[in-house]
């Protein structure tokens, strides 16, 4: 092939973005959006079969392959969902066609940015990509132009930019640390080079760098207490974007963190990044679990649950070790799939009920059985009940860490339990009981939602050995 798959995952979205920006008309652009996403996804999958060479700017290895494929897949399904969602938004006039055009272009740019962040072989490039992704999402969160949306976007924007600044400082520090060893120039920012020489870097500089990176990218991951932007951004933006935010952007930021963690892990003199991550993960998990109780807005509630799960994942990676890393990866994958599926459901629910207030929706399994039971299934999955995949990952996280750090694992387990309590408390009101709110039938596309849930279910019962070995390799890579 002329351009290899690696470039493909970047070029296709970029081109699509340009095209969509020019293209008027909702239907066509929506289809094109879906098509581009699908194409990107297939290119990403092809990464597994034809190994492209990693250059000074682009890199592909087992780690980011997993991320890229996951990202592109969820991006694809989300684009399918957003086709029907946005259609409804236009009907009720919440969005004008111009904004829709803008929206689709932005969507592809976001894909481009995230893919770039994932395949970037250069810490500077990665930083730029993540900043780009942030700015894009800021614009999309504010797309409804309601006061609340602007409010949320503004908050996201300010906190995000501070995070970006901190991350940049960290990046500079890493460069400073690398320069004496590697020498000036681009090489001192290239992952592949950094990894080989990391042992000789100045530990003190690396430490400071990691602190800044942890806070900078941690803001994007949504770790407490840096999470403030996340719930509102999820609640006020269009639901597809909430799905992308929860399902993908958090992962991308997490990916950056992981890379730097690996870098630090290679340097014996530097502080162990693990404990920091474990503590922040625990704080986020328990904090978010408690925050779930007072939520009245359905999307905001699930945003907090994202924070909780990010906490669990970061905790797992912080604990390290092949088992915990495997669990973390698995949990991240499962969470992306499940959470985006939930947001698909929530999006349609909010549309049919005409509100996001939990109090105003009820008895969903009676009025809209498919949506309702879909939501129930999703919540069951996200709460970590079998036979769905998250149970497996949580089982691995808790049981593998309990022998090593009983108290931490216990706290985590209690956090999970508290969160489960909150989720089902709300689920009772939403899905069961006397029906409330309009009962008009939903013109929804259930395929993406149930595709995700189906995958999660399958992973909970049977995982293809190829996938397992892949994950195990990555886990070993993460140390």
């Amino acid at each position, binding site marked *: 092939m002329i351009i290899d798959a690696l470039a493909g995952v970047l070029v296709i979205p970029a081109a699509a973005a340009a095209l969509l920006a020019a293209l008027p008309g909702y239907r066509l652009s929506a289809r094109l959006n879906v098509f581009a996403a699908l194409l990107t996804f297939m290119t990403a999958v092809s990464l597994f079969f034809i190994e492209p060479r990693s250059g000074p700017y682009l890199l592909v290895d087992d780690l980011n392959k997993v991320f890229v494929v996951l990202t592109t897949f969820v991006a694809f399904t989300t684009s399918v969902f957003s086709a029907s969602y946005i259609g409804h938004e236009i009907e009720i006039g919440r969005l004008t066609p111009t904004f829709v055009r803008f929206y689709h272009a932005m969507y592809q740019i976001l894909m481009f940015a995230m893919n770039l962040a994932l395949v970037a072989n250069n810490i500077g490039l990665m930083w730029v990509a993540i900043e780009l992704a942030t700015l894009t999402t800021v614009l999309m969160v504010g797309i409804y132009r309601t006061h609340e949306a602007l409010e949320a976007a503004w908050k996201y924007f300010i906190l995000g930019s501070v995070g970006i600044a901190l991350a940049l400082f960290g990046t500079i520090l890493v*460069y400073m*640390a690398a320069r004496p060893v590697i020498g000036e*120039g681009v090489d001192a920012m290239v992952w592949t080079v950094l990894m080989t020489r990391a042992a000789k870097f100045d530990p*003190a*500089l690396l430490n400071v760098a990691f602190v800044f990176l942890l806070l900078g990218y941690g803001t994007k991951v949504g770790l407490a207490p840096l999470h403030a932007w996340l719930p509102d951004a999820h609640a006020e933006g269009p639901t597809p974007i909430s799905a992308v935010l929860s399902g993908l952007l958090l992962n991308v930021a997490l990916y950056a963190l992981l890379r730097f963690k690996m870098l630090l892990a290679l340097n014996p003199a530097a502080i162990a990044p693990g404990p920091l991550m474990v503590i922040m993960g625990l704080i986020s998990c328990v904090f978010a679990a408690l925050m779930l109780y007072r939520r009245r807005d359905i999307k*905001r509630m699930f945003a907090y649950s994202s924070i909780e799960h990010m906490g669990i994942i970061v905790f797992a990676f912080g604990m390290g070790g092949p088992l915990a890393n495997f669990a973390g990866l698995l949990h991240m994958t499962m969470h992306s799939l499940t959470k985006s599926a939930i947001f698909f459901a929530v999006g349609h629910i909010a549309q049919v009920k005409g509100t996001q207030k939990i109090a105003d929706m009820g008895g969903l399994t009676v009025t809209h059985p498919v949506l309702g039971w879909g939501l129930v299934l999703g919540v069951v999955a996200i709460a970590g009940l079998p036979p769905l995949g998250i149970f497996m990952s949580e089982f691995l996280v808790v049981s593998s860490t309990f022998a090593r750090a009983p108290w931490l694992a216990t706290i985590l387990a209690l956090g999970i339990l508290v969160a489960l309590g909150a989720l089902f408390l709300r689920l009772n009101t939403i899905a069961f009981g006397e029906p409330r709110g309009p009962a008009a039938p939903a013109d929804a596309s259930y395929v993406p939602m149930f595709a995700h849930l189906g995958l999660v279910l399958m992973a909970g019962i049977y995982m293809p050995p190829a996938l397992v070995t892949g994950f195990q390799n990555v886990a070993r890579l993460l140390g």
Partner: protein
Amino acid sequence: MNALQFDVAHLLAGLLVLLSFMQLYQDRLYALLNIFALHALVLAASVAWQAFVQDAPHLYLTALIALVFKAIVIPTALHRIIVRLGIHREIETVVGVGPAMLLGMGLVALSMVVMLRVTTEADPLAREDLAFALSVVLLGLLMMVTRRNAVSQVIGFMSLENGLVLAATGAKGMPLVVEISVAFSVLIAFIVIGIFLFRIRERFDTVDLQALDRFRGERR
């Protein structure tokens, strides 16, 4: 590099920290703006000096951006905003000046301690520069969280970012510096536009709690 170059660079960086302190001390908006312009000016100078020392011509571009955009355009823009919103007589610090200064001292000391643990084979200029840059960043952040007024918060953010640029230029041979400074200018432009758009007077977000509740779609 010889001692002179080192001293000059050192002097400029130190000057930046000093100016950050003065910003922290100032509570009149106009004065704040002027000091910030000065801040940007010094930054430009130090960047230029770095460009000369490292004979890296692209850094001149960065210096130019700093000079034109930060030292001239933004301050004037903010000036006009202040006039437009009629908030030029605001005295609005969260903690008093004294405590703020003390905090600033603490931060500078902290950054020194953290940075001076860096082993010495990283060249001294880099170390000193980084120490100063870190203090500038922290002071900028401190400014953001101790000021109520949007404009002064923007200024805080910008001085923070000056610290970043200082660090980036101090890092010898660091690629993408120009791009980064451009990107940041874009970011700041966004913020300023945002202030324009939302007519944000007091804080970044609205005053009264009911409004807050409405915004967050929550009822207490």
